[in-house]
């Protein structure tokens, strides 16, 4: 993994240079959050569904060993080949070997956050395999040479005029045409050709049912289905935590997923792949990549309950105003910020600090992950392990020293007020990150403590 050059704060700063664009990004995502609310409020039992989903996922995490074995057995009985990959590299090697075995050089892939996590596209391209992402949003960022900035809405940061220009360059659409209807039709034509010629299709997995060995893939575009049904080989890639115990649990999760993600009552297609088409080969790759290790960490294990709906991103005030790319991980936003440091603490040490800890993420999470509490816990782990910058560490230690000593606290408050009143430039300068994009409030004459003592005396009340 390449080392990060800039941290989240620096990239967020860059994103914030264009104020009108940030406003647009912010409002677009908030609009989706509002759609989610409207959809959720129409279901009387919404909170009960969240609670049940959370409990089912807790049960899965505690019994993953047995469920995986059951799933494997069922899938094999269905005529599916099951592979196990300990890490990203092994996952990529397995997928490549299957493609090579069939002598194929061009493949289609529908959305899969796991393959993003494993950097499968880059790996396959190095081996001379051309991968075409078939989800429209993913295709757009792929043509632009970027990773997705959102797990459900991969090109949410792109404006239609820019997509028009991109399509003009890559697909030969007329210059200046930025009509979404027209551009989607052009992409449909372009991708149909790929569907018609690709002999291998890769998909992600939303849910894998232990009881039946089937995998469920949800899309609106129908790209996963079209890819698989026209291919000789279907490779489904999944993290081991995607298991659910029984088919009937799909009833709960499918009610929650699309409503949480985009406010739709359900995705257009919820496809249950159990056995391959006649003459087709079907493979499922089960990937660990740090998950079994994560399960040992009491404070952080339940992040693995995530069903990748993206609701926490749409609601997050920091994500909405910093953009997905500033997180530099396949999964951005609040959930990405607690998943990424589990994979590489040093590399992603900036992410748990990219939050106001407001808790909105935890409130909308359909499987009730305590995201904001984990962000807070990660900060403590990161500081203790020495993975924060010396400046941040000095700041935290300084604050701790002051807050631990009431005398110094009172004194420094008075000194601070004096400086802000008489030499404000000492505080209101570029070196103070708290002053960034803020006007400091007028300085009060006295502290609350002083005010309280004075008033209590005047009112003559006993303590």
């Amino acid at each position, binding site marked *: 993994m390449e080392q990060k050059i800039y941290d989240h704060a620096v990239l967020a700063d860059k994103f914030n240079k264009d104020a009108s664009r940030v406003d647009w990004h912010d409002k677009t995502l908030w*609009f989706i959050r509002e759609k989610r609310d409207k959809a959720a409020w129409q279901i009387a039992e919404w909170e*009960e569904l969240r609670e*049940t989903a959370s*409990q*089912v996922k*807790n*049960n899965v995490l*505690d*019994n*993953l*060993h047995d469920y*995986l074995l059951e799933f494997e057995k069922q899938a094999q009985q269905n005529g599916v080949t099951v592979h196990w990959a*300990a890490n990203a590299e*092994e996952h990529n090697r397995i997928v490549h070997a299957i493609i090579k075995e069939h002598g194929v050089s061009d493949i289609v892939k529908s959305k899969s956050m796991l393959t993003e996590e494993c950097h499968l596209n880059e790996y396959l391209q190095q081996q001379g395999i051309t991968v075409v992402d*078939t*989800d*429209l*949003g993913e295709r757009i960022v792929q043509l632009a040479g970027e990773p997705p900035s959102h797990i459900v*809405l*991969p*090109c949410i940061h792109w404006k*239609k005029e820019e997509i028009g220009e991109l399509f003009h360059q890559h697909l030969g659409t007329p210059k200046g045409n930025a009509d*979404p*209807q027209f*551009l*989607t039709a052009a992409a449909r034509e372009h*991708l*149909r050709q790929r569907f*018609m010629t690709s002999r291998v299709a890769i998909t992600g997995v939303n849910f894998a049912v232990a009881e*039946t060995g089937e995998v469920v893939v949800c899309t*609106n*575009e*129908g790209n996963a*289905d*079209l890819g698989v049904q*026209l291919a000789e080989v279907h490779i489904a890639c999944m993290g*081991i935590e995607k298991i659910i115990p029984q088919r009937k649990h*799909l*009833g*709960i999760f499918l*009610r929650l997923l699309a409503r949480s993600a*985009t406010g739709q*009552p*359900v*995705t*257009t*297609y*919820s*496809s*249950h*792949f*159990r*056995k391959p*088409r006649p003459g087709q080969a079907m493979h499922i790759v*089960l990937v*660990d990549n740090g998950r079994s*290790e994560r*399960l*040992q960490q009491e404070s952080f*294990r339940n992040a693995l309950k995530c069903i990748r709906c993206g609701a926490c991103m749409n609601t997050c005030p920091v994500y909405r105003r910093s953009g997905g790319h500033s997180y530099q991980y396949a999964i951005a936003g609040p959930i990405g910020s607690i998943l990424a440091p589990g994979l590489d603490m040093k590399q992603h040490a900036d992410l748990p600090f990219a939050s106001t800890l407001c808790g909105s993420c935890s409130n909308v999470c359909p499987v009730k992950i305590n995201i904001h509490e984990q962000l807070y816990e990660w900060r403590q782990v990161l500081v203790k392990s020495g993975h924060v910058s010396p400046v941040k560490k000095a700041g935290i230690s300084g604050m701790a020293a002051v807050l631990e000593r009431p005398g110094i606290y009172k004194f420094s408050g008075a000194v601070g007020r004096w400086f802000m009143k008489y030499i404000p430039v000492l505080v209101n300068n570029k070196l103070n990150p708290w002053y960034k994009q803020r006007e400091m409030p007028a300085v009060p004459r006295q502290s609350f403590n002083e005010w309280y003592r004075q008033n209590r005396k005047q009112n003559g009340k006993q303590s």
Partner: protein
Amino acid sequence: MESRAKILQALSKKFTDSPAPLPEVKVFPPVAGEPVDKFEFILRGIGGRTVRVNSYSEINDFIAKEYTSNARIISLVKEVSGSAITPDIDPHTFENVDLVILQPHFGVAENGAAWITSDRMGDRALPFISQHIALVITTDSILHNMHEAYDRIGNTNQPFGTFIAGPSKTADIEQSLVLGAHGPKSMTVFLLSVNR
């Protein structure tokens, strides 16, 4: 198989003294009103079209008005006209199909989805590759919610099954909803009334 053993070994460690039990899935009371009305309302809201009919001949008339005789129409519903398909045909040959007519097992009122399995698709590619799709659902086979749906599906063992809720769509370009992403550009559901 080294990684399999390694992963299972890591997972076999005891994480907790009291593993979380599997919760009961409650039966939630259905929302008030006729499920077929709700189904119609929701499906229209997500870009689908519904047509209430009393007979198969009405369906045939409706389709005849919308499609010329040159259109390639495949029907998997024996009462609805359209060509049949030969088994084991290459699915790529369906690329020029204009309309496919299928009969799902049931519809779901809460989300406008219809459940169909591979034995009713003719070929699994058909519901996705056709330019347009039409479904025939009898008004007595609309369930309230997804819990009822999975109760009905039970432990049937079909190689492939899918819920279809409206035409294929995308909003990836600036959140503008466009119908007809990769699959059918329109979905028409014929709600066939039955005498109970």
